[in-house]
């Protein structure tokens, strides 16, 4: 969802559109990453499956976190280092 928000779509709208994608995936009993390009375009003509797919899946999601205190790998690594230093 945040991947399409980064394209300038408001969170409320993005939420709705991802909901539609989830419904399509559920219908076909597949994951979001497995949706066809056509499915993506069906929900929004601006959606390009290829660029959205890289933010799908747990690995991509975790790697995309970038706020302070988030589960983004670099922040977690930084916290681990801080604690090691502290204890």
């Amino acid at each position: 969802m945040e991947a399409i928000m980064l394209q300038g779509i408001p969170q409320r709208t993005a939420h709705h559109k991802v909901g539609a994608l989830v419904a399509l995936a559920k219908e076909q009993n597949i994951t979001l990453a497995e949706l066809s390009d056509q499915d993506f375009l069906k929900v929004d003509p601006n959606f390009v499956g290829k660029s959205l797919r890289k933010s799908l899946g747990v690995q991509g999601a975790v790697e995309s976190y970038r706020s302070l205190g988030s589960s983004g790998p670099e922040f977690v690594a930084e916290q681990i280092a801080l604690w090691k230093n502290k204890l």
Partner: protein
Amino acid sequence: MDQSLARFSESISFDHRLYKHDIRGSIAHARMLAKEGILTDPEFLQIERELLSIQDRIERQELPFRIELEDIHMHIEQALIDALGDVGRKLHTARSRNDQIATDLRLWVRDQLDHVDELLEQLQRAFLSRCDLDHGVILPAYTHMQRAQPVLAAHYWLAYMEKLQRDRSRLADCRRRVNCCPLGGAAVAGTSMPIDRQMTAQLLGFETLAANSIDISSDRDFAVESVFVLSMIATHLSGWAEEWILWSTTEFGFLKLPQAFCTGSSIMPQKVNPDTLELTRGKSARVIGNLQTLLFRLSKALSSRPRPSPKGSIKATSMRQR
């Protein structure tokens, strides 16, 4: 005294654990009395030597506890008098059991808080070491018990680091208020004897001196506060235990508990029960319950009999003192 009353009012069965702190407090008190000329130096040395020997006897379980002697103070003082006669009788000068128990309890609580802090640090180290072991592992984070967002396992462990650090910070803060010396408050109004409260406070490692003798005789805030801090810790441990119990089920299967910390079922051979975690969760209930008990007891300090229950643990401010 009627035997049933002796059984009802004794506290030695649990305050025996204050023996070391009672003796430490008494030695500091006697040293101060000697400096003030209330005891002679040889008398002080005799008292000190005998108190240390009593401590030794208690540790070797050679000093039998008797309910007729009520509490730990009386056991130690009686043993001292048995050994030294009138010199032993001089120890309890310019001191009441009221400020004595308050001192013992503060010294004991202070040690316990330090001990718990060490244990929490060990636990933090354990969580931190898991961060490296689980490098790159991704787990679901849940909200409303529904899969919410993927997170690094290390991020989970670091969440516990934060909780435990707040617990340690609360311990340190609470310790400052525990570390205030009540000795010299005497029964409730202070004493006309020339005592040096600064000296005993310093000898016992107290940071500050309690300023009001009336307050001293009834103040058990530090005990309640300590139990609150422990309750918060228990709450965190219980939440962690709960999470891991769930995660170790076949349905979740996120983690496998070491066999050494589990028990089997007597009737279902396939089962491995997370007993350690279940007991952690269960025992936390007792800690949290104790907080309620102490708060309630303290709130009744004036309206109830001045005798605390258990004796010496919460002392009421009252004209009727020992």
